[in-house]
């Protein structure tokens, strides 16, 4: 499991104090709000707001202008000062309202290999008749892009979380924030959806050839040949790569066919945990990951055997995912308990 460094947004003070207070506040917010559903509408009670640095400077400037106006007894400077003060107050409410009522929906996260970033997708919908501006998601130091949402718009925001280790990555908490209108205030909400993503093991940069295994036909594996050698069509089966769908044939007949390539050896190959030539668990999983990636690229059938589970030879997206997931969550072959 990875965790993300979390910083309390723009909180003044010493770093250690800031962290301690920040953590307390976060715990309090979590306790107060509970766990959110994967589709959550932002209620005004859970939106927090604090002035930004610019906001503090703005307040200071307004105060200086007030002193100046009082000193000169200048009624037009009073107009200017109070107009700015009024704008400050209005922008505070506008800033908070810019978030209220937005609907956030978890839109999935694709599995990644360790070291890549897991892109958590959150769809945000603005059901009101007016635009919401300058919306951003964040998780710790990870920021999404800043986007505007027009009336009735729904947009997907991505939070690319860095990953280190295989297994599940949990996004316990993320925030949504806005600086609209004048960046004088930052209003934000924390969401605790307990989102989980899967991190496959990091593929080994260089892997030895998989040890020869007896195929179902009893002869040794041939070298893989290129994909270029088109061999024919066969009816689409679950697990066939969409890249190999013969779209032209589909347009003619209305049925889905997969292209078959001469290089795609239909004979099967086994990747066995116990046959990897290294002692280190993570290293073994990395090597196996690399084998699976390579085999998948060449569309060969492959089976995976790890202590506790076995995946008979097959190919395709779902097979690849099943095998890699098993490697991702593999706990070393110890029986649970």
């Amino acid at each position, binding site marked *: 499991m990875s965790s993300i460094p979390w910083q309390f947004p723009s909180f003044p003070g010493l770093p250690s104090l800031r962290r301690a207070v920040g953590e307390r506040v976060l715990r309090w917010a979590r306790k107060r709000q509970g766990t959110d559903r*994967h*589709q959550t509408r932002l209620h005004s009670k859970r939106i927090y707001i604090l002035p930004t640095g*610019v906001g503090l*400077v*703005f307040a200071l*400037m307004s105060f200086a*202008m007030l*002193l*100046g106006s*009082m*000193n*000169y*007894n*200048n*009624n*037009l*400077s*009073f*107009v*200017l*000062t*109070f*107009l*700015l*003060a*009024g*704008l400050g*107050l*209005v*922008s505070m*409410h*506008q800033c908070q*309202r*810019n978030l*209220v*009522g937005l609907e956030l*929906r978890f839109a999935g996260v694709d599995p990644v290999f360790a070291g890549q970033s897991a892109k958590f997708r959150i769809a945000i919908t603005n*059901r*009101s*008749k*007016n*635009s*919401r*501006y*300058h*919306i951003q998601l964040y998780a710790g130091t990870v920021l999404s*892009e*800043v*986007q*505007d*949402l*027009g009336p009735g718009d729904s947009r997907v925001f991505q939070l690319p979380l860095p990953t280190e280790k295989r297994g599940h990555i949990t996004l316990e908490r993320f925030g949504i924030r806005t*600086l*609209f*209108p*004048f*960046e004088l205030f930052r209003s934000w909400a924390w969401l605790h959806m307990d989102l989980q993503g899967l991190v496959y093991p990091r593929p080994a940069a260089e892997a030895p050839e998989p040890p020869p295994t007896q195929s179902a036909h009893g002869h040794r594996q041939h070298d893989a040949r290129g994909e270029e050698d088109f061999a024919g069509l066969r009816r689409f089966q679950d697990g066939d790569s969409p890249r190999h769908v013969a779209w032209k044939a589909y347009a003619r007949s209305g049925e889905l066919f997969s292209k078959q390539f001469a290089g795609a050896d239909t004979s099967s190959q086994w990747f066995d945990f116990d046959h990897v030539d290294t002692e280190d668990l993570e290293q073994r999983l990395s090597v196996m990951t690399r084998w699976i990636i390579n085999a998948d690229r060449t569309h060969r059938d492959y089976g995976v055997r790890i202590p506790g589970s076995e995946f008979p030879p097959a190919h395709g997206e779902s097979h690849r995912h099943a095998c890699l997931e098993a490697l991702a969550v593999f706990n070393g072959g110890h029986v649970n308990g």
Partner: protein
Amino acid sequence: MVKRTGTDGSLLASLPWTLAALAFSLAPHVQFLPVWITVAFLACAGWRWDIERHRRALPRPWLRVVLALVCFLGVLASYESVSGVGPGSALLAIMAALKLLETRKRRDQFVLLFISIFLVMASLLREQYLWSLPYLILAVVLTMTAWLRMSLADDGGETSVKQSFKTAGRLMLYATPLMLAMWILFPRIATPFWAIPVDTSSATSGLSDRMSPGDISSLSLSDAVAFRVKFDGDAPDPIDRYWRGLVLYRFNGRTWSGWEPIMARSAREELLVAGEPVRYQVTMEPTRQQWVFALDIPFEWSRSEIFMGPQHQLAKEQPIDQRMAYQATSYTRYQITPKMTSYSRTRYTRLPAKSNPRTVELAQSMRRASEDDESFAKAVLQRFHEEEYFYTLRPPALGSNPVDRFMFDTRRGFCEHYASAFAVMMRAVGIPSRIVLGYQGGEMNPMGRYLIVRQADAHAWTEIWLPNRGWHRVDPTAAVAPERIEFGITGAMLSGIAASWGLAAPIAFVHRMGLTWDALNAKWNDWILGYGPDKQDSFLEWLGMDEPDWRKMMLTLTFLIAALVGLISLVLMMRYRPPPKDHAALLYKKFTRKAGLVPNCGETPQDYASRLGQDGEELAAGADRVTAQYLSARYGPPNPAAMDLLRAAVAGFKN
């Protein structure tokens, strides 16, 4: 060596607006600033824009430091100081220009926009005209639009320029009631915290504290307003409208002087007044002088810092740097009866020896021919009236012994010449005399029902002391050109010009427009610019607050702001509320609650019904019925009965 990277063009969307806001804020300063500052600002703005457009690098740091140093020294050299509105606005303009050259990121422009706001503030400290209010509102809208342009979404987002402008305008609209509440209720204080630096660079207009014939001629043509007067009742007759300003008694043969801002407690006790009092309020334009104008003769006045001097003229403790309003009560029938001690008699009769000998000689011979002092004075006036003396605004220059030259050679002059000559003639025979400077007349503005007294109405007259009457006003100019005294100089000149050119109607129209504009300005000065502690108290009392003090004001203000903010929050809530739920959807939700099964995300009603139907035949039938009605009510052709059928189906559904 610092690596120089080019700009990335990220400022293209916001920089023009920042520049526009800065230029707009700087515009009212341009006429007061040295030209090089405006040029420097424009050059830096153009340079920065060019850099951004062509993705060039910003100028090197050392160059920026050198430029900053040069500009700062330039401001010092131009102003010899860095405090006050003039150098302050110059420094702000320079800071903006130099900051532009180091602005790399979008957010760096915050500083520029703060400078823009301070520039607007500085222009208000400099001058507050009627158009300053729309100007400042526009400037704030422009600055706030630039502010919005600066924080756009990454991809530019939804926001067009028009939309930014509208958003800024909308937020301004919300802020306006807050501004009004604060403006009306924020307690005004009478005394400043720190001394106000006086901007001596701008020219003053008005009277001077010395008079040598010739000075007033330039004033006679100036249309500038000296003060405005609002009378409680009827205005006094034009002939009684003598506005006493300062009194001069020291004469060196050429120049009258001797005005001093000294308080004389006994001066008011020397006044004997009769008849109806005239109550009025004067709003004086700043003069940077201490004298205060009042109708002859002031008897009561409102401000504690105004006092009466020994020659019965009003003055203020500090120079009048801001427009000032005061109430006063005067009597047009009065006597000034001080004791004429030998000391004062010497003071008011002194003439320099051997100056203006012909005039002295003439006076002495005329006195011998007269019965008493009063008939002598009348004889002198008679001489001005009957002999060839002319009233002109452009008298010839007078050499040494100017009074002699005027009396016997040129015989042309305006009020100063006549007043000076008359006073000298009086002194020549030992009658105490002094010169009063002030204004005479004024124009009644029918739009606002107040009197406008302009610089062109400046006047000089004399006072002589007679044993049985005290100080007595004599206006020798009246003996020469009586119509000028009747109507004031504006009316006299205007009707003369208009009649001679046959342009009476259009000129009268233009004049009336001018009067309307002046009436607006007077209201503006009175109510907006003059809203000080006294006005605030009386206005709040009028609104119903008893005995307003700052605590009550702040308390009321706090409540009012809370209420207004609540209202604004409500408006915003309505603005962002989701569209009302469909009636059919609400009924369907009731059905799902009854069924006790939460629909999955993205599940269609049919799928939901079949999932529900797995629990039994009867349930399935009920669910199908509701689903069918729901689909027809929500998505089918419009049918008023469909909703009732759905309601019945939901009501009939049993789990």
